[in-house]
C-alpha cells in the first residue's frame, strides 16, 4: 500500500494525466446520462409531479391519459377527476404551439395549489414554455379549433407531458371548453390510495411509461447508457492494464529481490481505487456545476443517487480492470523481467 501511495504522489505528472483522462470519461458518462435522464423526466414531468400513486382510466385507454374518456358521474369515492387533452394553441402573435391541457377541481388536492385562485377561462402555463414562446402572464391565448380563449394568470414548473408544454386549468374552465367541442368527459380519476373501481387502474409509474413515445425513447436512452458505461469501463480497464504492463520490468525486479506479489498488487489496486474515486469525485463536482450553469430549458437532470450509481459502477469496473494485470504479475517470472541477467 505504502509503495503504491508513494508512486501516486511522486509520479504526479503521469498520474495527473491519468486522472484527467479518467475524469473526462466519467464526466462524459455523467453528462450524457444527465441529458438522457433529463429528457426522460421531461417526457412525463407533469405526471411525476402529481402526488398520486393510483390512476383509473377507461378500459380501452391502454394506460394513456389522452385516450381515456370517462363520465364524471362514474367517479369512484376518494378520487379526484383529471382532464387531459391536447390542444393546438394560437398565440397573440398568430403562431401556433402544441400543448396539453390538464384540468383539476378548483379545490384540488393533487394539482397545482394556484388553481384555487383561478377564475373561469384562466390558465397556468409551464414556466419554460412561457420563457421560450414569449408569452407572459396577462396574455390571451386561443384554442385554434374551438376559438376558445384563455387568459394566462400564472406559471407552473415542470409542466410538460410528452415533451409538450402543459396548460393547467380548473375543471370548470375544462367543461366550458368541452361544451364548445360538444363533448363532456374527464380523462382520469386519481388518488393517493388504491382505487376501488371496475375501470382500468394503473400506478403513477405505469402512466409515465405509457406517455406517448416514452417507452421507445427510454429504450434508446437505456441502450445509450449501457453502451456508455461499457465503453467507458473498457477504456479505463485498458488504461489501467497498460499502466501496469508498462511497469512489468520494474515489478519483476521487485519480485526478484523477494518482494511479495501481494505487496506489489495491493499498491496497484490502491492506485486504481484512489485514481478512479478521486476522478469520480471531481467529475461529480464538475457535473453538478455544469448542471447549475446549463440553461433551464435544456432537459438536463442531475441526481446524486443516479450519479453515485454510475460512478460506483465505473469505479468497480475500473477496479476489476486493474485486477487483470495482477494475474500477469503473479505469473511473471522475475528472471524474464531482468534484462541484465541474460548473458
Amino acid at each position: 500500500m505504502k509503495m503504491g501511495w508513494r508512486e501516486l504522489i511522486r509520479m504526479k505528472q503521469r498520474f495527473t494525466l491519468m486522472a484527467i483522462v479518467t475524469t473526462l470519461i466519467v464526466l462524459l458518462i455523467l453528462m450524457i446520462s444527465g441529458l438522457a435522464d433529463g429528457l426522460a423526466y421531461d417526457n412525463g414531468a407533469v405526471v411525476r409531479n402529481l402526488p398520486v400513486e393510483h390512476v383509473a382510466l377507461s378500459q380501452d385507454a391502454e394506460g394513456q391519459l389522452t385516450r381515456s374518456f370517462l363520465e364524471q358521474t362514474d367517479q369512484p369515492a376518494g378520487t379526484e377527476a383529471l382532464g387531459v387533452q391536447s390542444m393546438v394553441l394560437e398565440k397573440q402573435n398568430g403562431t401556433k404551439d402544441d400543448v396539453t391541457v390538464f384540468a383539476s377541481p378548483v379545490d384540488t388536492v393533487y394539482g397545482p395549489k394556484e388553481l384555487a385562485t383561478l377564475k373561469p377561462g384562466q390558465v397556468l402555463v409551464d414556466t419554460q414554455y412561457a420563457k421560450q414562446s414569449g408569452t407572459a402572464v396577462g396574455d390571451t391565448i386561443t384554442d385554434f379549433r374551438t376559438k376558445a380563449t384563455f387568459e394566462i394568470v400564472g406559471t407552473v414548473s415542470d409542466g410538460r407531458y410528452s415533451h409538450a408544454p402543459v396548460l393547467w386549468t380548473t375543471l370548470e374552465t375544462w367543461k366550458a371548453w368541452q361544451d364548445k367541442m360538444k363533448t363532456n368527459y374527464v380523462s382520469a380519476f386519481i388518488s393517493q390510495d388504491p382505487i376501488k373501481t371496475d375501470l382500468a387502474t394503473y400506478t403513477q409509474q405505469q402512466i409515465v411509461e405509457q406517455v406517448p413515445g416514452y417507452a421507445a425513447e427510454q429504450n434508446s436512452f437505456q441502450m445509450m447508457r449501457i453502451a456508455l458505461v461499457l465503453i467507458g469501463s473498457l477504456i479505463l480497464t485498458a488504461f489501467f492494464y497498460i499502466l501496469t504492463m508498462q511497469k512489468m520490468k520494474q515489478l519483476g525486479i521487485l519480485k526478484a529481490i523477494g518482494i511479495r506479489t501481494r505487496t506489489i498488487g495491493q499498491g496497484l489496486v490502491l492506485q486504481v481505487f484512489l485514481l478512479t474515486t478521486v476522478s469520480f469525485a471531481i467529475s461529480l463536482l464538475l457535473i453538478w456545476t455544469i448542471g447549475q450553469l446549463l440553461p433551464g430549458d435544456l432537459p438536463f437532470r442531475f441526481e446524486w443517487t443516479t450519479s453515485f450509481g454510475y460512478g460506483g459502477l465505473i469505479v468497480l469496473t475500473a477496479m476489476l480492470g486493474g485486477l487483470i494485470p495482477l494475474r500477469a504479475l503473479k505469473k511473471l517470472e522475475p528472471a524474464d523481467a531482468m534484462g541484465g541477467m541474460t548473458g
Partner: protein
Amino acid sequence: MIKMTQVEQTYGEMKVLHDVSFEAGTGELIALVGPSGSGKSTLLQLLGLLQTPSSGMIQFDGSPLGDTSDEGRRQMRLEEIGFIFQESHLVPFLTAAEQLELVAEEAGRTIDAAAQLEVFGLGDRSDHLPHALSGGERQRVAIARALVNDPRLVLADEPTASLDYSNAQQVMELLRKQAHEYGKTVIVITHDERMLSYCDRVLRMEDGSLNET
C-alpha cells in the same frame, strides 16, 4: 556455503550450462568472467533461485534446494540472497532510505535506513530519489539495499559496468569488505579485468562450461 553439483540448464534444444560443479565458501569474493552468451547470467540466476536447473543439484548450507517451494525461494531471495544489478534497478519513486525500508519491512524488520546508508557514504542522500543521485551513488544504494537483510550470499551482475573507474573501485572495495569483514559469499560477474584483483577466485565460463583460473 553454496554448492552446485553437475548442474545442467537446457532451454528447449539449447543446452546453456554443461555439467557445472563448483562450491563457494563463506567470506569468499569470486569473480565470474567469460564472453557474452557463455552462461554467466544463467549461472547467477540459478544461484539466486530465479531459475531451477534442468538437472543437477544446488545446495545452500548443505541443504538441497530442489524441492523448495516458490514461496520458500522467494523468502530465501529476500533474506538470504542479495542482488546487485548492472543498472542499479532502484524503484524510481522511492528515496534512498525507502529503497532499504521496502526490503526490510517485507522481511518484517525495522531499520534505521539513514544509518545504514551512512555506512556506504550516503548519509546525506537518504531523502533523495534515484534520479537525483549520481550513477555511483545509485549503485551504492543498490548495494545497501542488497545487504539490508544481512544476506549470506551476494550476487552481482556487472555492478561496475556503468561506472567510471573510480566509482567501480569503490563498489569493488565495498564488496570485498562484505566478503572479508562480514563473512558473506560474494559472486560477481565482470568484464573488467581490472576488477579481478579484488577477487579471491576467478571462475571462467565458456560455452556453458565452468573452469577455475
